[in-house]
């Protein structure tokens, strides 16, 4: 952290009293108890604070710094989360407990959840537009939305109070990004800004809860159509286990994809390559055949499965199942 930059320490809480810090410390003026105008020598722009309900409040900052400044939020006694969306034009640096994170519109990580017990520092570059929105949500309020649903892996530890003092970084999801982008176009001086802000906050909170709630982590990562195509090739492989591996070219043609797209997608969906999947299935079938007593010789099974050399078959079989085909075959015969 660059400690030569002057630091301004402030608190944030669910109630509006903390605005005093900005008035006393930075000579800000507060309009309507909501909008906080910064003095011109320091930054041009404003902050906007609205209490949405007893459990939720929002603080939004839209400014261009005219002199370097570090904003450090002091740990708070109140038990809430700060859900943080950063849509700044450029990278900003965010320090939580001394760990640096890059946030901003261009950065993939514009979304963060920070426990109010943590201290965090926000540093952005002079002359760039900073646009960030913080939702302060009382923990007990979020929990009320989760009675018997399992949480997404990423967030799992958050509700655990032992480990709970943690933070999470991620991307802003699409719908929130669109909502924030719309809000970004509005001016804080407009009379209807409060309504637009409140509306956006309700939406964001909804999306946030949905995100916490969604079990299907990969939803949206794969197109349904692509998945169907992949499944089709999978079926093709399973019904042609006795033949040699057909090759990626044929499979990708069945799926109507390029080879590289097919290979990557297959790997992402099943966690292995089509070839290893095919081999695994073949060897499982081999075991069934060995135990079925329909064959007199192991070599018959090996030929049936498309292996030309019995020794190779034995070797592969042992690698996969742990013992030689011979052992299984004998045990069944006896």
């Amino acid at each position, binding site marked *: 952290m660059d400690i030569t930059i002057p630091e301004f320490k402030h608190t944030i809480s669910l109630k509006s009293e903390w605005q005093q810090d900005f008035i006393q410390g930075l000579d800000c003026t507060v309009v309507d108890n909501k909008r906080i105008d910064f003095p011109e020598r320091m930054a041009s722009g404003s902050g906007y604070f609205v209490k949405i309900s007893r459990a939720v409040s929002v603080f939004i900052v839209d400014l261009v710094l005219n002199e370097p400044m570090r904003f450090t939020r002091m740990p708070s006694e109140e038990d809430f989360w700060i859900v943080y969306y950063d849509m700044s034009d450029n990278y900003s640096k965010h320090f939580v407990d001394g760990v640096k994170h890059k946030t901003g519109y261009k950065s993939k990580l514009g979304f963060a959840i920070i426990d109010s017990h943590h201290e965090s520092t926000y540093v952005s570059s002079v002359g760039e537009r900073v646009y960030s929105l913080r939702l302060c949500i009382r923990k007990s309020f979020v929990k009320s939305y989760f009675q018997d649903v399992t949480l997404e892996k990423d967030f799992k530890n958050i509700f655990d109070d032992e480990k709970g003092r943690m933070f999470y970084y991620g991307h802003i999801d699409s719908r929130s990004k669109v909502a924030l982008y719309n809000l970004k176009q509005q001016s804080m001086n407009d009379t209807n800004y409060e*309504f637009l802000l409140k509306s*956006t906050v309700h939406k964001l909170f909804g999306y946030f809860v949905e995100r916490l709630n969604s079990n299907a982590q990969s939803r949206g990562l794969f197109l349904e159509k692509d998945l169907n195509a992949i499944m089709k090739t999978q079926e093709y492989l399973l019904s042609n286990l006795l033949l040699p591996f057909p090759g990626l070219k044929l499979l990708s043609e069945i799926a109507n994809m390029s080879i590289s797209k097919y290979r990557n997608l297959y790997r992402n969906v099943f966690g292995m390559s089509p070839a290893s999947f095919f081999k695994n299935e073949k060897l499982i079938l081999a075991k069934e055949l060995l135990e079925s007593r329909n064959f007199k010789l192991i070599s018959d099974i090996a030929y049936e499965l498309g292996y030309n050399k019995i020794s190779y078959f034995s070797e592969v079989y042992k690698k996969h199942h742990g013992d030689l085909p011979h052992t299984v075959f004998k045990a069944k015969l006896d």
Partner: protein
Amino acid sequence: MRTITYSYGAEFNLLEVLAPAMGGSIEGNFIKGNNELYEGTHFVMPFDNRVSALLVDATYKESALLEYRTGVDYFVGMYFHVIKEDINFIQKDESTLVGRQDYNLLIVDSLLDFDYVVDNGVNTYVVCIFIYKSALKEYMDKIPILKSLSKDVFNAKKNTIISMDRMSMDSSILINDFRKIPYDSPLFELYFKGLIYKLIGNYLEQLLTKKIIISKVMNDDVKSIIASKTKLLESVDGIFPGVDFLAKQACMSPSKYKKLFTKISGLSPGTFFYSNKLVLAKELLETGKYTVSEVSDKLNYANISYLAKRFNSKYGIFPKEYQSLL
């Protein structure tokens, strides 16, 4: 024809008024009903002591006359209609059509009694916002152009508020988006609140910019513009037919068509068409069934990069990214 009378007022006791009048059963803030008169859902949401909202989603099984009686003078109702067919709005023996091709935003003083005539089989989806006049006056006072006006407008002796208008495109997109949320979603209330705030915000903006001005009597020109707008929306996946063609269809000169269109929708025909295309593109991407290039083909974009460029300038995010981060 069945006659149903709602007399509400004083404490916004909508739940107790609506349920017996319609014959539905109360479940939390919902009233659900399925009887010989209608099938549908009402949702009541009090905000603070000066604002409350009501959602009506009902399909009538027989023709009905709905009478709204309040008898108090301190609030204003804003009614946003999303209806395919037309319904008749009657006030002081004067009947007006409300629907997709006519007015769909009504602002009515609580002092005024009014009726709706709803035909058999008509689905009505109405978002109603009730605001105390004192609250609305505060907001309007903050807008410089309206300040001088608000004194007279809110003087009950001089004036009763009634205005018929069309909601902005943004508002209708919002309501349509909102309709996708199922009633049993735990987040329903939350999104509903979000919708209401945005609708109020949009309406104030509409007042501010004064882009949409329709005189009380809607003339034939305006009607044919609205009809042509509806047609345009139906063919939004095609190519833009051009103002000349549209004007010819509406029997107007191109310059008149363009001028009127812009006045009514706040957007020029082209901008209106292309922004609706993008809305559709966004919806298609959300379904997860199509790739970006398929969407671009489906909507007749010349190439993906053009779609991506327009999408990004409207929503601030590229389509591929939008899809993968959903």
